[in-house]
């Protein structure tokens, strides 16, 4: 969910290893895009960790620890 909805399919297509175009876009998203403002979401709890100036804030509140 990086604001590039049209660039990546929701799931990898079969035989994606051979799809150079897909691989290039995946590489871009994984290694070349730096999130400056946004959030990380825990896949289990859904808890969002805000990212500001490129640094995610992973501090837990009192109740969470």
């Amino acid at each position, binding site marked *: 969910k990086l604001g590039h909805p049209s660039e990546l399919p929701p799931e990898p297509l079969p035989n994606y290893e051979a799809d150079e175009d897909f691989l290039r876009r995946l590489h871009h998203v994984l290694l070349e895009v*730096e999130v400056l403002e946004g959030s990380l979401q825990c896949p289990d709890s859904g808890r969002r960790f805000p990212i500001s100036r*490129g*640094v995610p*804030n*992973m*501090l*837990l509140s009192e109740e969470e*620890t």
Partner: protein
Amino acid sequence: PGAVPPHRPGLVKMSSAEPGRFFCTAGRGLEPFLAREVRARLGATEVDCVSGKVFFRAAAAPDELRKLRSGERLFLLLKKHSPLPVSGSKGKMLHEIKRFVIEEPKYWLDVISVWRKLHGHEGKTDDVSQENTLVLKRKSEEETNTASKRQKMERVRAIVSEECQVEAGERCVAPERMRGQEYWTESKTSSEFPSKGSGENPTANEKLSFSFRVSCRCSGAIAKILTSQEIGRVIGIALVKQCGWRADLRDPDVEIFVHLNDIHSVVGIPLFRLPLANREYIRTAGLRSTVAWAMASLAEISAGALVLDPMCGLGTILLEAAKEWPEACYWGADISDSQLEGADGNIRTAGLMDKIELLRASVKALPLPSESFDSVISDIPFGKKFKITNDAQLLPDILQEMERVVRVGGTIVLLLSQDLRKRMDGLTKCAGSDSPEATADGNSEAAPAKVLSVDGNSSSLAGGVGKSFLSSRHFGSLVPDGVYAVSLGKTDAFIHKYRKVSAAGN
């Protein structure tokens, strides 16, 4: 043992391929790291380590020498003798010192041309000889000398303060431990170059002559008879008379460094204006960069390694490590937003954004998988300046997380205060040993201690019985692998290295 044979001025011609003799000052405790570094990085030979200095011979160009990371200031070695004989008479001592330092003008011309060649000032040798011939013909400049010597002392003080002020952050390290006298003094005279009596135009004077400054340090037996100022002044005057140079405190062409103590008598010329410890890639300094580098050098960082500093502050350790071992991945975490901002600025200044990842997190609850890092390196904050007030009580929690995220076979390198290291030693004692420290700790005020049982659940244990049990079980997986005492200027600290030999609970 025995006297060091006097060094004769044989080094006239030097290119980057030819060996030269150097010495480099080092913060107390870092000398072994520096000795190892000059051998490894420069292929140095004749490495001689004394308190606060490492002497060596190497065939290296200035840009290679500049890469030294654990030293403070680097000097071209001119003379290294055994300690000067001390007599009760000041006059006699000063005479001895002059005899030691001052040589024929040609010697100094050779030295200057060597030094200039090192700095790529080829072809200026002629100018220097011309300058000197001109200046030698000038009349006596006694008044100029006196004023400039006093300026010299003021300047010398400023230089040392600059070196100490390098750290904008919490720690400041003095370049050397000075056991004897300090060489700066309060001076009330203002700076001026009176031209009366010399009959020359002072501006023309300055343009033509080669300028210098003498930095003198003395300690031990000599310091009981003479002060550094007196010695510096005498040497300065003698050099002006001998070579016709001009004393300049603000921006001299060259600095002559004289160090006299009970171990040796040394004369050298600093190769660079700024200490090596000033890194151009660090914007805001925290921990002394030399100590940070030394810690990283112990962590055994290999290609592809993942390295974490879970209390990274301004990121100094990560910066030093990433510069030296760029083929690894570095992560830094801190709870303070302002510290992380500073770290971010440092990382950008250094151009290391793709090497160092930052996280705002608590070292007591790291959002990182177990056994995911090859090495944890950290300067555990101590002292009243930091928010962590009861460091000693928090240490087990901090250590628990560090131990958890390091893989088996990985290293943990920590910088600890005297208090913290005692606590640390108590926590990392091997299972079965019944050290009085482990039980006598001031931990009794803590409520039930947490102990990781074999299945990973936390259980509470009350009372003192649990404490040594806690110690021996909790961190038996961390085996001490070296302790290094280092000076941080006003305080001493200890670098502790550990290796994780098994998962906790095994």
